[in-house]
């Protein structure tokens, strides 16, 4: 066998069309390492550097497909197969020698990547074992197994397609394109043609099965430090599949009769097993341009649903206690027992995110019938029982829970919450922060391969305590300081000093606003830094303060955190932009270099603009899609012009009104207070009416 291996290696080395590009590739790889290292030195972002490292992976795989195909096909080009088959296991031994030779060929770049990654790890000096393990797994999956996949595919294509080079290279190009974001545009075509995402989903399902480089070329989404590169069990299963399946195809060429039939059966079995395991892959973090990808899935889902206003919905009951038995494997499997305070209602409503499939609801007396409508569960009378057990499983595209990481914040309905609540707010373009005003007792037991961090006290993934929301985080996540939990790999680690500073700033501010009753004490609460990507598709999650803990996407300094907390307290209603301006002035962060600051605001013009805005808004207040479609060309032009005019005027009015009310006005402190009350009230009043009222009052005051 050694002789066969040596000869195969000699064939490779003496084939200039194979060995020359290979050595050029090695040289380019070294140069590329230099580029990646320079990238790290410049930006100090380890995951950004690693993304650069992973980016050309598909080219390596394609190159190895070429190498393995061209090396193996020599047997067929030189008519060797016929006589090799007559030797005892001759063809099998020849294939084995070629595959071992190819493994040697890929070992060199694989080791180079491994060493470079190890070097980077040592250089950044993070000293965090889970990250080191993650990097080792990255080396094995992305720069080891994927390369092996390349040689197995190349060899299998040589074995099965023989000298049909056009077919082989066409398939290789298709395979390469499916491992890039090239598919973003063609996969959207069925939607554009038929207005349905079903075909797109099917195409992506097929693409995912062929994806051997999970963070594909062209993907511009950043890698989340808590999660790292996608390496869920399904990725390893797929890597195993794309190695074993071609191997069985190769072996069917080497054997005859019963062995061949057995191998073909094995091959079919591997396909079924691979497809079966792939279809139950559960919760995976999809970050690309597909409609099911996490940045888009929920906004799309809720976009087409009639929005119901559930704010203030009275559940009629509270949950006193939760007993949760959670199993986090490929996705969340939960058995949640709730104890309610009012067992005499005729009807109970709960909110549970629609991605979780409810299997049963039961009391001690047995199963209860229930109806499920999107995020809502309706149950009839409990016949006096005060305990309900919900059994469900499933996933959310954004709030993942799998063997690689867990990110389940307490404000998200991944467990049943009392009453009907909105999950998504299209106006704010963000998830609704669903935290109960009341605390419940939680007893939580989690079965997971990860060490889970929770806002409640406990250890070994068992927790108990009182809170108004249960947050669970795990992955490349740790307690980085006392009661501060974050991703150790992130550069911007939160500090208790920042949190204290934020609290002090807010206390001063509430005193300034003469609203001491609104003062929040959070400096000693547990602090959980959530992935920065949480805010990728949501404007509402920068900071969430719950009864016993805070979640925030970052905590770089006290003033910034204070501003984010204040933003989380305010309700923007229909005036997000104006609210942001209000916050800028409240925290004295206005940009005084803006041309607006060259002159003082003319209040008469401001009032005229407000009038115009209100007039235009009233004029088109009953406009809907149907009416728009029924308009003639001229009407549409007029409508579009009015819309543009409204947008421009709105921006101007917001800027001017905020500048005058909170900066120029002699009563600016009072105005800040009025608008604090406005933004924290449940009032439906239009902010422009309030602006107009105050401005008119001030004008009258000036005249008098």
């Amino acid at each position, binding site marked *: 066998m050694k*002789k*066969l291996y040596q*000869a195969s290696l000699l064939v490779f080395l003496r084939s200039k069309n194979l060995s020359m590009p290979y050595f050029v590739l090695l040289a380019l790889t070294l140069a590329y390492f230099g580029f990646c290292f320079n990238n790290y030195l410049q930006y100090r972002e380890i995951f950004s550097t690693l993304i650069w490292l992973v980016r050309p992976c598909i080219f390596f795989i394609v190159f190895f497909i070429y190498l393995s195909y061209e090396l193996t096909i020599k047997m067929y080009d030189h008519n060797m197969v*016929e*006589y090799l*088959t*007559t*030797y005892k296991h001759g063809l099998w031994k020849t294939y084995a020698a070629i595959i071992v030779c190819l493994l040697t060929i890929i070992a060199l770049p694989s080791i180079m990547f491994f060493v470079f990654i190890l070097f980077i790890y040592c250089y950044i000096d993070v000293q965090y074992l889970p990250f080191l393990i993650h990097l080792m797994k990255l080396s094995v999956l992305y720069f080891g197994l994927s390369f092996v996949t390349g040689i197995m595919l190349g060899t299998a294509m040589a074995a099965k397609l023989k000298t049909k080079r056009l077919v082989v290279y066409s398939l290789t190009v298709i395979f390469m394109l499916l491992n890039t974001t090239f598919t973003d545009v063609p996969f959207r075509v069925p939607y554009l043609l038929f207005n349905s995402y079903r075909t797109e989903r099917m195409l992506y399902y097929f693409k995912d099965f062929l994806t051997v480089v999970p963070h594909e070329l062209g993907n511009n989404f950043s890698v989340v430090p808590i999660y790292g590169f996608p390496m869920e069990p399904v990725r390893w299963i797929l890597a195993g599949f794309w190695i074993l399946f071609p191997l069985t195809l190769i072996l069917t060429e080497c054997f*005859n*009769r019963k062995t061949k039939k057995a191998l073909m059966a094995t091959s079919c079995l591997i396909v079924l097993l691979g497809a079966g395991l792939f279809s139950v892959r559960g919760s995976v973090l999809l970050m690309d341009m597909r409609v099911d990808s996490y940045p888009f899935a929920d906004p799309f889902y809720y976009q087409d649903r009639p929005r119901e206003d559930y704010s203030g919905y009275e559940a009629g009951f509270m949950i006193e206690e939760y007993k949760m038995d959670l199993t986090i494997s490929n996705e969340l499997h939960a058995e949640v027992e709730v104890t309610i305070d009012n067992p005499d209602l005729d009807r109970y409503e709960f909110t549970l995110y629609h991605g979780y499939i409810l299997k049963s609801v039961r009391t001690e007396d047995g199963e209860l019938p229930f109806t499920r409508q999107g995020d809502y569960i309706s149950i009839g009378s409990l016949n006096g029982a005060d305990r309900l057990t919900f059994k469900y499983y499933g996933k959310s595209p954004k709030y993942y829970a799998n063997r690689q990481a867990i990110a389940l914040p307490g404000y998200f309905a991944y467990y049943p919450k009392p009453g009907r609540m909105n999950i998504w707010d299209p106006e704010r373009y963000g998830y609704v922060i669903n935290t109960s005003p009341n605390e419940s007792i939680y007893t939580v037991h989690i079965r997971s391969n990860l060490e889970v961090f929770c806002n409640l006290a406990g250890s070994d993934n068992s927790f108990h305590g009182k809170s108004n929301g249960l947050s669970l985080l795990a992955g490349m996540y740790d307690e980085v300081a006392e009661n501060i939990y974050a991703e150790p790999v992130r550069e911007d680690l939160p500090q208790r000093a920042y949190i204290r500073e934020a609290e002090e700033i807010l206390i001063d501010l509430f005193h300034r606003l003469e609203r001491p009753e609104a003062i929040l004490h959070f400096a000693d609460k547990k602090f959980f830094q959530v992935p920065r990507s949480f805010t990728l598709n949501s404007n509402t999650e920068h900071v969430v303060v719950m009864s016993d803990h805070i979640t925030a996407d970052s905590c770089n300094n006290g003033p910034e955190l204070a501003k984010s907390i204040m933003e989380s307290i305010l309700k923007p209603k229909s005036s997000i932009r104006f609210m942001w301006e209000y916050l800028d002035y409240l925290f004295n962060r206005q940009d005084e270099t803006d041309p607006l600051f060259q002159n003082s605001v003319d209040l008469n013009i401001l009032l005229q603009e407000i009038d115009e805005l209100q007039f235009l808004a009233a004029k088109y207040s009953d406009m809907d899609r149907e009416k728009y479609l029924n308009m003639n060309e001229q009407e549409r032009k007029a409508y579009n012009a009015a819309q543009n005019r409204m947008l421009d005027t709105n921006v101007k009015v917001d800027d001017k009104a905020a500048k005058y009310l909170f900066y120029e006005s002699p009563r600016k402190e009072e105005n800040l207070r009025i608008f604090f009350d406005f933004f924290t009230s449940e009032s439906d009043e239009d902010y422009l009416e309030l602006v107009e009222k105050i401005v008119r009052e001030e004008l009258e005051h000036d005249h008098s």
Partner: protein
Amino acid sequence: MITVNNLSKSFGRKEVLHSVNLRLDAKVYGLLGANGAGKTTLIRCMAGLYEPQQGEVLYHNEPIHKSKSFHQDLGYLPQAFGMFRELTLYEMMEYICSLKGIPRSKCTSEITKALTSVNLEDKAGDRIKTLSGGMVRRAGIAQAILGDPKVILLDEPTAGLDPSERARFKNTVSELKQDRMILISTHIVEDVDACCNSVIVIDEGRVLFNGSCEELRNIALNKVYNINEADSDRITGEKFILKVSEMEGKIYHRILAKEKQAYESEKPTLEDGYMCLVKGIV
């Protein structure tokens, strides 16, 4: 040594071999047949490369796919033969030794012996890509005889060889034939005449003849006439013009005739016997 029992092989709807029965001992056999007669299919079935639809091939009374020694004892040269062009002839022979399971200690002597047999010993260090087509063909024969196999199946071994190489091949076969079964598939009758003890004639997948060269020649006894072109029309009964030749300005026809003619018959050659069989002049 090798028994072929009731062997049939089809490719799709086309039946290439029809119930072939053969018994081959330690002799040199020539497998004669026209192109497409089924020679290669038969030889591939005998080498275990094709699975027949019906029947079986036995080696020492054991089906070849169950025989433990068959692959060890088999030397096979396919119709189309090639080697890794990047290796030297010696390296390629070593490669084959390794595949054939020849012990490393015997490799050098076996390779030298095989290369000497085909007159390629001085080319051992040359890369395959520098060898001529004939040399590669001879290297193929060397590959087949490497390891002293008991059964040698050669599919058109002389195709592409020049006359001197063909002569050399005949010598090689003569040297090898002791205690071996050698089957040489060819459509060149002279090669069979020169090397083989026995002949198997196959046509359209059926064995037409299996016997000695003498017996095949005798089929054409009193049926071969070498006559003037002008007399050609006087031949009665079923006939076949085998060859047209010119001698001293006159044109002669070598004719196979089923019936006894008024002319003096020629001494038949193996080709005459073969053609009589194939053309049904028996």
